[in-house]
């Protein structure tokens, strides 16, 4: 690809745009979308090469939000990393906490009381609800729906955030799970509120689907757009709703039940096309299953302690060894890999962020589609830059 001064778009050449010439495609336009762009979900940048409006090359550029998370984790105590995990995927602090707590508990051989396990399931499924709701809203926002679906999504998310706030003290940075249980025991009033939210959620989902799922414009925009084959998804390590939208039956809650997931009855929805519409619909269907899990968990939760009495808060020094803890986060498999050398800080602290891994197939999905499609394909991957860049 060489720069060609004789391109018709050459007069536009400047800092942001370069007219490039390609022997096969003729005159192409290279556009830098982001890092400051309304639809890149934060500071993400796509170097898009366009033939007309068709994407012929897309290079994701990220790292603008890099905060040295893993190195920080190696230099703080095990507990000290917990509030930082809130800030990975700031929509899903509860599941991030759980994944990290799970890894440390594995490392230290720490038991967790039953009530805490139930609480973790409840909070993780609430997180899934709020994450998928918001994703549906953002996806529609990218498709140009002047904010209405997003506002409805935020209205419902608010109710879940209120639950989180009254439990953990903070709406998004919950910092709630501890190695060996949870931090605060919910009051009966909290459970009543959680039951109310759970009961009302299907009604909201019905309304939301009436608003948008059957909408011809949305179907035309998303069906057949950004198709991802099951083979590519598996070999690229895609997880979560994005993988299940391709028809691959892989859900850690079923495949490797952690916590008490084996005690609950729920189904795993699968898509057949692997396109943007499937990715959207799988999330909607997953929310309905999450509601079912929540109902069961809120019904069955036992009384008892929420924190293992043998667990330590201060001077927590797990014996030397390594552990990998992973859970099915709303965005996919989130895992923490820890190596302990017996001191108070982990020797190695590594995260498997679902957003980041899922983002790797962006170019494969966007090729041949228009730039408008690239925006909603990006939206359907469901990334949070805090997790991508860490």
């Amino acid at each position, binding site marked *: 690809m060489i720069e060609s001064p004789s391109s018709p*778009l050459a*007069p*536009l050449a*400047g800092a*942001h*745009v370069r007219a490039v010439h390609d022997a096969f495609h003729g005159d192409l*336009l290279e*556009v830098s979308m982001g890092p400051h*762009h*309304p*639809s890149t979900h934060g500071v993400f940048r796509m170097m898009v090469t366009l033939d007309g*409006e068709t994407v012929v090359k897309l290079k994701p550029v990220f790292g603008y939000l890099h905060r040295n998370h893993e190195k920080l984790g190696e230099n703080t105590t095990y507990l000290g990393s917990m509030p930082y995990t809130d800030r990975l995927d700031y929509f899903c602090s509860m599941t991030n906490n759980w994944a990290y707590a799970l890894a440390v508990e594995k490392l230290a051989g720490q038991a967790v009381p039953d009530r805490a396990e139930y609480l973790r399931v409840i909070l993780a499924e609430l997180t899934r609800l709020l994450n998928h709701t918001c994703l549906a809203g953002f996806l*529609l*926002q*990218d*498709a*140009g*729906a*002047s*904010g*209405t679906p997003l*506002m*409805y999504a935020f*209205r419902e998310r608010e109710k879940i955030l209120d639950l989180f706030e009254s439990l953990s003290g903070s709406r998004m940075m919950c910092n709630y799970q501890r190695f060996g249980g949870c931090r605060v025991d919910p009051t009966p009033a909290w459970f009543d509120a959680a039951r109310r939210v759970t009961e009302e959620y299907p009604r909201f989902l019905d309304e939301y689907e009436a*608003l*948008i*799922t*059957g*909408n*011809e*414009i*949305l*179907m*035309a*925009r998303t*069906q*057949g757009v950004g198709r991802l084959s099951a083979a590519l998804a598996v070999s690229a390590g895609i997880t979560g709703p994005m993988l299940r939208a391709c028809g691959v*039956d892989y*859900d850690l809650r*079923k495949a490797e039940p952690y916590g008490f997931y084996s005690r609950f009855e729920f*189904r*795993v*929805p*699968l*898509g*057949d*096309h692997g396109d943007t*519409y*499937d990715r959207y*619909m*799988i999330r909607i*269907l997953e929310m309905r299953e999450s509601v079912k899990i929540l109902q069961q968990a809120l019904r069955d939760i036992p009384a008892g302690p929420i924190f293992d009495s043998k667990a330590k808060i201060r001077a927590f020094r797990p014996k030397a060894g390594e552990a990998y803890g992973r859970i099915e986060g709303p965005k996919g498999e989130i895992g923490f890999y820890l190596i302990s050398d017996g001191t108070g800080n982990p020797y190695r602290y590594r995260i498997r962020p679902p957003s980041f891994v899922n983002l790797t197939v962006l170019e494969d999905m966007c090729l041949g589609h*228009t*730039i*408008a*499609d690239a*925006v909603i394909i990006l939206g359907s991957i469901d990334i949070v830059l805090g997790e991508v860049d860490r």
Partner: protein
Amino acid sequence: MTAPAPLTDSFLERVPLLVRDFITGWFPEPIRWVVAGLLAALTILLVFATIFALLTLLERKIIARVQNRPGPNRTGLPWLPFTEGRVFGLGQPLADGIKALTKEDIVPRDADQVLHFLAPVVLVAFSLMTFAVIPFGRNLVSVDLDAAVLFFFAAGAGTELAVFMAGWSSHNKYSLLAAMRALAQLISYELPLLLSVVPVVMLAGKLSTTGIVAAQAGWKFGFIPRWFVLSPWGAAGFVIFFIAALAESNRSPFDLPEAESELIAGHLTEYSGFKYALFFMAEYFGMMALSGLGVTLFLGGWQAPLPVLEVIPSYLWFGAKLMLLILLFMWIRATLPRLRMDQLTRLAWKFLVPLALINLGNAAFWHLSAAWPGLPLQAVRYAIGVAVIVIPFFLIGRRLSAGVAPRTYRYAP
């Protein structure tokens, strides 16, 4: 617009004309027509600029309410008594205006200075010109042209040029892409827009807007108005007109030139301050003008919907209908996601244009069968009129939405 008000009208009906005659009376006879014309232009400018200001607020309020938010409600008019400085955010347009005026006007260094400046001016000028031929009331039309409908579209054509000028002169990739999109969109939708208007012109037998309103006068059975929208071809034509008008005025779901998730602010990306406000204003003017034309062509213009309601002056009826259409614009904007460029043009060429052409034949049938005697035959005429447009709608619609359908999902075993 120099004819005196007929004395048969009610006083309220005659008020605008009386005021006009009072003011022109100060001037000598030979230049009275000039004064009257200027007065009309000034009135349109003031009235519609005010409506524009209020509409910006109303639109934000309505979209906010749809989204379960209160919308702008802080900015009040501090000097108003008993309101604690807040009246539903009524001061918002004023604040916006002051902000736009005082903001630095940034012109990119590499921009084409002349065209960059001219674009908003040309746009506002052309969109204002379209108001000249719309009859706002019984005797309220600034220029009663013989070829008024043609004039409307001719003036509207200028706006495309302005959009192109804005996009090209900004020297910005997003602006240029948006300008190309805007042109493709405007040209595509000009066709269904015109084709949906042709039946009206055909049945009214006139290109003059006042003539078309007059053709919709009177009542069937004494209470059903003879508005074109109430006939099968008129209803279909109105829907096509409305969809095309949405696209022509760059409104959601056809707001591709300003698709912020793709093109930042489209051709407005490099505009700031008052020039941006002018673009904004022109967009609302365009929307109001197209709504006004829709009211004139299909909704009976300034005519009251029932004979008893004729005591209310005609210009209020026009205003009410205009508002109704604009509310519809806003409602749609608050609901729908936007189409993709190829889908947009496909909708125009493969759906709206064929339907508009069929509707043309439908209108011809309606015209020729007007004299069918008896109620049963009239009912048959209605049924045929509906069938002729509904059946192609289903057929073409199915073709258009082929491969796009709700799906069912399976669950893991």
